[in-house]
């Protein structure tokens, strides 16, 4: 007997006569198999991954840019003051302050219902909102990584006659990258999970699909448990990859 037949049989039985497992099965069937609803979760999953990737790219580009501006500004030769750099640094600071000082959800609502109120592409607007948010955190992580590095590394590079860019590229950035990889990984996981928030502006990711299914079946337990499991699996896969990368980068530490 396959699941469809089992569902047919069980759904004939009056609700009050169902055994516990039979009731659970019926709910699960409606949340997953009925009308091929599992497809909806996977469509949502694909959107979630797309949104994460778009947001990640926006976040990393913005983050690197802002971190570079702020670090270069702070590391200017004392006494010199570059006006353009000062201006960009000011903008960067305002950006980071606003993003870190306001809730993600409120930012998304401003993107979705104010700035792009007329746009129909909620998913893309959501990705933009998430990316801009993530950029501020990534910038602070990168800046922290660059600042935490022993200034002697920069000095050693410069004393050998390498210029600022070369020293950054070959010496500072590779070390900073290794140091911040765990925090970057955490930020990525936060971003992945925060994609669930874009459902408030009707971005069609997994939570959106789950809510729609729940509304059809009047039963929310399985849709949300399934959603949770899907997120958990994605995070576990990512953490595993991250661990592998970190172990590889730690090769130069062996004694």
């Amino acid at each position: 007997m396959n699941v469809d037949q089992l569902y047919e049989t069980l759904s004939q039985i009056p609700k009050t006569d169902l055994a516990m497992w039979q009731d659970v099965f019926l709910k699960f069937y409606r949340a997953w198999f009925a009308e091929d609803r599992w497809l909806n979760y996977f469509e949502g999953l694909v959107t979630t991954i797309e949104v994460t990737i778009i947001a990640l790219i926006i976040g990393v580009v913005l983050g690197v840019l802002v971190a570079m501006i702020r670090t270069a500004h702070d590391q200017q030769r004392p006494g010199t003051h570059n006006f353009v750099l000062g201006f960009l640094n000011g903008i960067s600071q305002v950006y980071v302050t606003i993003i870190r000082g306001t809730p993600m959800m409120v930012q998304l609502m401003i993107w979705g219902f104010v700035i792009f109120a007329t746009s129909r592409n909620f998913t893309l607007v959501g990705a933009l909102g998430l990316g801009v948010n993530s950029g501020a955190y990534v910038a602070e992580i990168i800046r922290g990584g660059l600042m935490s590095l022993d200034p002697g590394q920069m000095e050693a590079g410069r004393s050998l006659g390498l210029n600022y860019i070369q020293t950054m590229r070959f010496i500072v950035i590779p070390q900073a990258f290794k140091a911040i990889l765990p925090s970057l990984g955490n930020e990525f996981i936060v971003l992945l999970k925060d994609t669930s928030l874009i459902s408030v502006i009707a971005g069609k990711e997994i939570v959106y699909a789950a809510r729609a299914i729940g509304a059809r079946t009047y039963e929310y337990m399985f849709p949300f448990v399934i959603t949770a499991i899907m997120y958990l699996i994605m995070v576990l896969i990512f953490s595993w990859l991250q661990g592998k990368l970190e172990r590889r980068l730690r090769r130069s530490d062996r004694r």
Partner: protein
Amino acid sequence: MIDVKNLTKSFGSHVVLNNISQHIYPGEKVVVIGPSGSGKSTFLRCLNLLEEPTSGTITFDGVDITDPKVDINAVRRQMGMVFQHFNLFPNMNICDNITLAPVQTGLMKKDEAVEIAHALLKRVGLDDKADAYPAQLSGGQKQRIAIVRALAMKPKLMLFDEPTSALDPEMVGEVLNVMKQLADEGMTMVVVTHEMGFAREVGSRILFIDGGQVQEENSPEEFFSHPKNPRLQDFLSKVL
């Protein structure tokens, strides 16, 4: 070779170097000593502009390097610097530590740089460490590598900032030996150190810096046997 004129350096209102003038001739081994916090490192770091002088000029081979228009990277390529804490690049193996600057600055091709790295490593007895990472080496080995790294740029002048202060006593000798060898080959050197034996044996001139000024300078014999400045007498009585 280097002419320092009226060099003053202050951090905020704290005047660390007060109007120092000095001339360093080719082939000289100038040893700088002085109490902690007297500005020895600051003086050394001004010579390759790791610290920007507040006022005064530093002329290297006829070029005023404090002029903002001067390509400071090109100047630094001709001056090697060795730090108290080695500052090797932990993300690269020893060979890459040594060849990075010569290759990236366009001084030589990769294979030529590798060849020179091996030759220099042999001289300091560490050729077998070419593929090791800095974390795998002892302090003395790291410092010898740091010297090699600076030498690979074929500098005209070497600056040493307390190269043996962070080392366990049993490793001091191996680093000093490399420096002595370098001195014997005629390298111009400016060395900040607390190793009075090294100063006496290798130095051609010794500077005593205190209170932001060179209080006394002399040949090693005179410097140690007939110190005139009372602060130097006091300092020597403590360290010798």
